[in-house]
């Protein structure tokens, strides 16, 4: 799954730690999501969407298969 997390975070000048604090997860989790090593659970995807004020579909999109 692809995502725009890094781009959205950079636009707000947030560090990975900032975003991690806002979503109540570890910085490693944010890093793993940004680099595509980990697909978040639905609750975490909703939390990320809420933090950015967007919908899940605006942040995540499935890989073209």
């Amino acid at each position, binding site marked *: 799954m692809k995502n725009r997390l890094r781009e959205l975070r950079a636009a707000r000048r947030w*560090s*990975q730690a900032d975003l991690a*604090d806002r979503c*109540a997860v*570890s*910085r*490693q989790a944010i890093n*793993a999501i940004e680099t595509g*090593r*980990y697909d978040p659970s639905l609750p975490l995807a909703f939390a990320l969407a809420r933090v950015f004020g967007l919908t899940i579909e605006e942040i995540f999109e499935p890989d073209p298969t």
Partner: protein
Amino acid sequence: MSDNARQDKVTRAARRAVLVEGTPVLVLGGAALMLGSTPDASPSQQVGWLVATALFVAAVVWVVYRAFGRADEYQRKVQLESMAVGFAAVLVGLQVAVALDAADVVPLPRLAQSLVVGGIAIWLVVADLRTRLQR
């Protein structure tokens, strides 16, 4: 202190907590291993082995429970995958141990506990390396 540095400090503190709790577990595992390796154990040695093993198992459960309680969903995934690697190692080791036992090379009971302690060690090392290397 930057946010990243603060978060890394939190991660290091969590890792240190696992080490602080995990060291007595490894000591108990070693003690249980030594007590159980005597083939002609006296009743008191057998009781000591049973107590050390029971404490070891309880301590492992406690450390796992605490570590999972502190972890977020990504860290739990890393922990579970590391446990799977350790468990696979124990399964393969058990197959080898059974073969060695059948060939009368080493008795299975003597190897069984080493395999469990080794599996836990592999699990902890894999989990630690994965959290250390994947930043």
